[in-house]
């Protein structure tokens, strides 16, 4: 019970830290370009005449569109992992009993 409580406290602290850090990240990462953007810039330098021959079928719209879909991706992955952990925890506990 105490170990579960300690883990729960740790989860809360980590979650609050992550949320807090993400709000400060825009200030810290103002000049932090993604590597794919840098690569696109480099292609323009190496071959200024090159133009992309295909565009995306669909792009998330609005400021939060991409964030929401990335969050969905993360939530989907975390959901599967949490399900796996819970299922196996139950299995281990029933074996111990």
């Amino acid at each position, binding site marked *: 019970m105490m170990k579960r409580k300690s883990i729960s406290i740790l989860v809360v602290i980590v979650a609050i830290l992550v949320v807090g850090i993400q709000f400060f990240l825009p200030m810290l*990462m103002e000049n932090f370009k993604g*590597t794919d953007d*840098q*690569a696109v810039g*480099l292609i323009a330098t190496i071959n200024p005449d090159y133009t992309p021959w295909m565009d995306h*079928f669909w792009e998330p719209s609005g400021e939060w569109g991409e964030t929401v*879909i990335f*969050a969905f991706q993360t939530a989907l*992955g975390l959901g*599967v992992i949490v399900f796996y952990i819970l299922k196996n925890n139950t299995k281990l506990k029933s074996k111990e009993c």
Partner: protein
Amino acid sequence: MYKMLSGKKRSSNVRGVHVNFFIFYEMIKNISVFLCMLFIPIYGFGMHIAEGFLPKEWAGIWTIIFIPFLIIGYQKLKKQIERVPKTKLLFAVVCAFVFVLSSFKIPSVAGSSSHLTGIALGAILFGASSMSVAGLIVLLFQALLLAHGGISTLGANAFSMAVVGAFSAVWVYKFSRFLRLPQGLAVFIAAFVSDVLIYVSTSGQLALAFQSSSQSFLENMTKFLSVFAVTQLPLAIVEGIFTVVAFRMIAKYSKQELKVLNPSLY
């Protein structure tokens, strides 16, 4: 929550306060985790070659190169799941790990940011060729819904991630174990090397595609490596750590399945 709402009387006020605090605490924890999941990927930049940024001929070549790996990987995965049906959930966990890690954009001390890959875990557990399926699923998801990577560059990105990344992870893991290194360290090194080589491969693909009379392959490779690999080195350390944690968790929970699926792990 049920106990709170059911109106059951407590034997003492102290116990009642303790239970209500625990319920409130669980609620805060769940809300925090949800907020964490919502806000973690606040910035989404892809790690792949963007849509249309590989000339047509090269996009076609890499797609043709990747297809046999996909076919072999699918057949191998199908046989593994038929042999050990419980590995279906395990494969889902491995894909989920790739999903989660590739959604994190992490700043690097190099002054830019990039993504982790997560491919090494599945490669070590299931074998390298099976990861072509996982890699394709993730890349397709990101190309269609997030406008990261692309359909035209799917073959090239999948080759880098799910072939170069996966095979290098397996070979480095096996070589590390051959050298009698502890399993955790072997997993870490495999994940580290795999992460870096994915980006080296991407650099190579771009260098090949954009070489000309004025820009040789080696010159281009150096330029692209300076963008990708330098950023990725510190992130590869993070990936190694995450992979070791995930590997230990899976080795503990799915010991029986892994003993049948990949006896060399034990």
